[in-house]
């Protein structure tokens, strides 16, 4: 090369391009981040190993019997069948009430409501509601839903519908917030393209914005469902029974209108009993609850991916 080298400032002349040593601050920062991850993972790992260690032997030994047996004061016979039914019903009630209601609210807030001071106030309030302790929702459920069923003459009103509706109200803010965020993330230019070919607001919302935001909405649904299935404090107040009086094994009407319990309730109950065997049963119950939650999440993620591809 015979071309004239460009003039260089004196300070850099002759300086090697090679690094002289490790850059300690960045190494330390990276190490700190990795350590944080490790701590988190270890805590989670410890929890899972502990639960599996105690619960798996019970599940191996009892097998399906653990799932189909009713609650009992004898640890060798006790199972979670009523709790499974209760949790299933709560999941269904949340799915048919909180999901459509929450998504519709989010669509209204994001796509239809004018951007006014009132809308902003409502938005902030919904965000705050998501942070309200669940015990407060339990009180609300007791006062409103349990009271309503009682007033309508359904026994003491403490049935799984009242409990499910209470949990639905609890997760409603989560559904609304995540769905609204998913809709907000849909690029404005998709809406413009829709309006540009003469689509009405309804056609743009239903045909373009909701499908584009649907994977994000599903994520919100997963979060809400996981929260709903694991919720305990709310159910204590909203009338789930702790003992073996649950009519979870009754016919449909009995299940819906009789006393009920749910998996986290039963786990909580068992951990408070003195016998060591019940502690193992509790661990087994946790495994069942975890499997159900993971399965629900897995299904939602599968649906989301399939949808994202096919749309």
């Amino acid at each position, binding site marked *: 090369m015979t071309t004239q080298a460009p003039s260089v400032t004196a300070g850099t002349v002759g300086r090697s391009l090679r690094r002289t040593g490790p850059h300690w601050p960045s190494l330390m920062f990276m190490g700190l981040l990795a350590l944080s991850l490790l701590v988190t993972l270890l805590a989670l790992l410890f929890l899972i190993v502990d639960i599996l260690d105690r619960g798996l032997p019970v599940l191996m030994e009892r097998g399906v019997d653990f799932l189909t047996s009713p609650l009992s004061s004898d640890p060798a016979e006790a199972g979670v069948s009523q709790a499974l039914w209760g949790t299933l019903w709560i999941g269904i009630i949340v799915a048919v009430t909180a999901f459509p209601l929450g998504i519709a609210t989010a669509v209204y807030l994001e796509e239809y409501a004018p951007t006014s001071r009132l809308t902003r106030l409502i938005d902030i309030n919904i965000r705050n509601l998501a942070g309200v302790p669940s015990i407060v929702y339990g009180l609300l459920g007791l006062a409103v839903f349990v009271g309503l069923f009682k007033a309508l003459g359904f026994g003491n009103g403490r049935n799984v519908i009242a409990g499910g509706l209470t949990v639905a109200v609890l997760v409603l803010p989560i559904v609304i917030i995540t769905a609204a965020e998913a809709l907000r993330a849909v690029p404005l*230019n*998709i809406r413009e393209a829709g309006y540009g070919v003469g689509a009405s607001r309804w056609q743009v919302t239903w*045909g373009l914005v909701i499908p584009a935001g649907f994977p994000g909405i599903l994520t919100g649904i997963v979060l809400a469902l996981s929260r709903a299935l694991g919720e305990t404090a709310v159910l204590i107040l909203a009338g789930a029974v702790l003992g073996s009086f649950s009519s979870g094994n009754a016919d449909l009407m009995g299940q819906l209108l009789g006393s009920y319990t749910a998996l986290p309730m039963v786990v909580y109950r068992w951990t408070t009993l003195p016998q060591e065997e019940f502690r193992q049963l509790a661990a087994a119950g946790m495994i069942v609850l975890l499997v159900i939650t993971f399965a629900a999440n897995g299904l939602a993620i599968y649906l989301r991916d399939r949808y994202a591809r096919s*749309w």
Partner: protein
Amino acid sequence: MADVPWTVPPTSDIVIRLEDVSLFYGSFRAVRDISYPFRTHAITAIIGPSGCGKSTLLRSINRMNDLVPSAHATGRMLFHGEDLYGDGVDPVEVRRRIGMVFQKANPFPKSIFDNVAFGPRVNGFKGNLDDLVEQSLRRASLWDDVKDKLKQSGMALSGGQQQRLCIARAIATEPEVILMDEPCSALDPRSTLLIEELMLELRERYTIIIVTHNMQQAARASDETVFLTMGDDRAGYLVEAGATTDVFTNPTSKLTEDYVSGRFG
């Protein structure tokens, strides 16, 4: 493209007539007192420096700016004599008659077919959708590129193809006027040239109003040019308009001359 014959199209009717149009965002006036007759079957380029309200003006013609809550208009915009902002005028119907192609190609995250078919579908099209999609893609010079992959996502196409897909989508609703908001600003020179050739073909059937930053594009591919600039109050106003050759080669205003020769803007 200098050899393109710039014969004035035979029909010289006015399709859109602006009368003292001012456009506002809240209390800010973005465009001031613009009057201009847009001729049918012509390509009219709107040029001017950044921020002079070209896009605002364009987007107000098919009432796209209705989507901006604070936007409002005064004056009259007549479409075949009917005020686009008159009482009872449905903006959805306006946009069916006056289509739009945007600055950034914005295909729906759907298949190529569904992208083109979306407009006809929402407008209750009853005929043969396959034929309409093919015809629209052909008119947008995209058919040969995509005829074997109509089921694939429109997002998978190249930038220039995406913009032609957007043109096909706009054509599919059979609008009378197509508004183009800097359609080539994100495209390479080759794709830009393809779109310009396409515009010249489309002029046979449609009226095109295009906002462009690209002076050569306006000179090459338009019949008429409207030059806007910004006043001291930051509101855009019309400086000069007329046949593109006149505006570019024989401008009457010093402002126009400076702008088209690249001395400011």
